[in-house]
């Protein structure tokens, strides 16, 4: 099961999947040109929600449709440094 991690630090707000940079999925939709962010509702968190769901679900259209509620329920509450696996994302989606 994939592990997603994010951390704010001197090198930026970095998000990885299994240790590799998480693609922003700009080809699906550009919410933010400034990269990922979290712990609030806005363009950066919206891009992160799309990227996480797209990678996890493997379905860009479904990821785009769920990105707004997923951002509000999950991404807007992530800590400075956070860690989620696929099971946690599934559980969060089921609770939406």
């Amino acid at each position, binding site marked *: 099961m994939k592990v997603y*991690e994010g951390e704010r630090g*001197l090198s930026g*707000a970095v998000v990885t999947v299994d240790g590799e940079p998480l693609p922003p999925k700009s080809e699906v939709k550009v919410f933010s040109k*400034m990269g990922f962010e979290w*712990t609030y509702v806005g363009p950066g968190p919206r891009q992160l929600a799309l990227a996480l769901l797209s990678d996890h679900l493997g379905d860009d259209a479904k990821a785009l449709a769920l990105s707004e509620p997923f951002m509000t329920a999950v991404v807007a*509450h992530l*800590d400075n440094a956070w860690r989620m696996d696929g099971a946690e994302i599934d559980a969060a989606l089921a609770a939406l």
Partner: protein
Amino acid sequence: MMTARQEAFRTAYRAQIAALYDGIVHVALIFLIGGAALWYCVQNIHAPTWLELLVIPIVVIFANVFEWFLHAQVMHRPRPGFMGIYKRHTLAHHQFFTEHEPFHDTTKDYRIVFFPPYAEIAFLVMASAMAYGVSLVWSTNAALILVASAAGMYMNYEFFHWCCHVRDDRIIKHIPFVNTIRRHHIAHHDTAIMMSRNMNLTYPFADWLFGTSDVQRGLLGTLLNGYETRFVRKDLPKVRSSADVTRPAVPAE
């Protein structure tokens, strides 16, 4: 209590501070520049009218709202052209200082407490540009009072912010307004609310005005709240999925 992550960040941040950096010189420069601007303006104000003196409260309120806006919309949001401010604040200041350990250890840490002096110069240039307009349409006195008030508010900001991050509060906790902003700002360093609440650094007027304070009180109660925690909102969010091992994270749903 400091988490391992915060400790690691502090070590990494301190390692990249230039060896020649001197925190006392940094602070002295800020108050020298601000003090010189204030002194010059006051020296050149002659017999101000009551109407001209009204510029002082107007600048205080304007600076308060500006401080709130800059903090909420620039320092905590990645914006094109302003990434340096966001990185310095959200990605550095808020990793160095948390609500669990919000205090600096040595004067070297002033590097991440105080703004660089050029920020003060930029602020004074903006104030001077506005003052020039005021001098054209009104009076030189009003213009000088505007710049003097702006310089005073800038130094007020830096001093109050330092009061929030200094460890020893034996005196500070008894000083009205200072004790309020200290609790207010340390609460702001909680990741769960740092992007949305407690954006004032001097007097939480704009936070009260725009409903972004973490306390639910009237204006006077908010301004003079001190260390009181009885009025802290019960509906504040909590962080989830934390990778900060000592933090009591909300379990994933």
